[in-house]
């Protein structure tokens, strides 16, 4: 997996209530959730996001509610990856479990600007900013998580192992 895309940049403590507001949680349809992704923090996100784009944020991305609808909405919007200084733990688990790659890399997260072009190599953890020409090293995923991605999510990896 080596996604490449344009950056949508946010800052600290982006909570799951703004990623997908609770008023839309009366559905689990991926496309309906994607239609309202980020709308309480960035009204133009849905209009601007393109397949493969990358969300970059700073501290504690995905804090708050455990709603898996949040990584689902981002993934269904076309976002290929989230890079942040740190993630809230439930959001982190949920993303890995649904096979949505997210990476912690404080240097890349703070130096990247909205509109930059980034690519990510998940095997090596190398993040390249094609706009600034800089590269960054994130911790690659442990084998246990690579196996979840390779299987297409936690449940498929469990069923494969059965």
């Amino acid at each position, binding site marked *: 997996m080596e996604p490449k895309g344009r950056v949508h940049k946010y800052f600290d403590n982006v909570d799951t209530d703004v990623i997908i507001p609770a008023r839309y949680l009366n559905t*689990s349809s991926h496309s309906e959730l994607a239609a309202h992704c980020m709308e309480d923090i960035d009204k133009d996100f849905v209009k601007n996001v393109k397949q493969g784009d990358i969300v970059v944020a700073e501290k504690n991305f995905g804090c708050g509610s455990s709603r898996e609808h949040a990584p689902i909405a981002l993934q269904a919007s076309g976002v290929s990856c989230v890079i942040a200084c740190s993630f809230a733990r*439930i959001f982190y688990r949920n993303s890995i479990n649904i096979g949505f790659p997210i990476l912690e890399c404080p240097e890349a997260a703070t130096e990247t600007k909205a509109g930059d072009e980034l690519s990510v190599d998940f095997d090596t953890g190398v993040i390249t900013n094609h706009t600034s020409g800089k590269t960054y090293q994130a911790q690659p995923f442990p084998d246990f998580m690579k196996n979840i991605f390779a299987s297409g999510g936690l449940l498929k990896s469990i069923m494969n192992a059965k």
Partner: protein
Amino acid sequence: MGMTMTQKILAAHAGLDFVEAGQLINANLDIVLGNDITTPVAINEFEKCGANSVFSKEKIILVMDHFTPNKDIKSAQQCKRSRDFANQYGISHFYDVGTVGIEHALLPEQGLVGPGDCIIGADSHTCTYGALGAFSTGVGSTDMAAGMITGKAWFKVPTAIKVILKNKPNPYVGGKDVILHLIGKIGVDGALYQSIEYTGDGVAALSMDDRFTIANMAIEAGAKNGIFPVDEKTLEYCKDRYQGDLQVFEADADAEYTRVIEIDLAALKPTVALPHLPENTKTVQEAKGLKIDQSVIGSCTNGRISDMRLAAQILKGKRVAEGVRCIVIPATQDIYLQCLKEGLAQIFVEAGAVFSVPTCGPCMGGHMGILAEGERAVSTTNRNFVGRMGHTDSEIILSSVAVAAASALTGVITDPNDLD
């Protein structure tokens, strides 16, 4: 090196004698919980991967509490999907309108969770049961589905922060003030990926309801769990109630903590969190006078019987201020009934408040008290994020029941100690 209380519970559930921070383990689960919002997503995943059985009919608990009684057609569909799934797999603990309460008040009350248990719930406030000395943490719907299939979940063994509670709190200071103070001190990511373990002589001064409130908001500091030692009050609470195999775990004397924080309960003041993060804490004296349009008393954080009694004590014989909407929501049917028996419901209605059936309702902007543009609420709930209770230009101030009730009477943020 010894183990923390959390590490001991995790080790026991992973079939290991010893675990250390950072270790990846697969733990056996005593309870897997879901609600009307997270269960349908878990069912999607369950069915998509071709599963056709659950690990236990008795250890899965489905609670229809968020958008119920169904607020719209889509919410009704989500409950129906959950209900059909429960029927299909013979899941015995399915709580629907009539028996339902807010999950994190309901499970302890019904004796479904207890000391030493290892619990996951597809709801972030599942950490509440740490008050009972259980390891309990919030997860998402895929983890819930995996838990329903296998009875197991993967965890990275957490490091811990030790919080030493000292002395006794003053009147109108309780669990909510303790946890808001702590979050204000360490921040909304101050305990990220970690356990918060409470200890000290101050624990004995806190009621079980206070402890539930404190454990409930561990997630608001980013924590994996918040946990209390098991003492006489815990055992008394569990007596004639808890149906499981009660196991008491204690942290080793040489357990390692990344940080130790002392809180003098006697020095704590009624505390509030201003918009839009739970870490924006002030004492109520610093925040007093801010105008409010609504006061919400309830939720998994503060909808228990002692909360209802405290609200009634403050509202009794008085009237909610003109222009303020006061919404009182007991967390479970048992608490609702107790409010009727003790005459609390009458006190609320005579004071000009509404007294609702159990529901999560307004806490996450579901229904039963949504805010308009420019409005401000004081609320005993747990999050004050942008748009959490309604319009993106509305505001929430988090507080204790005493502050929310006192403020309902005056129409501005009020220290209950300042009431006549």
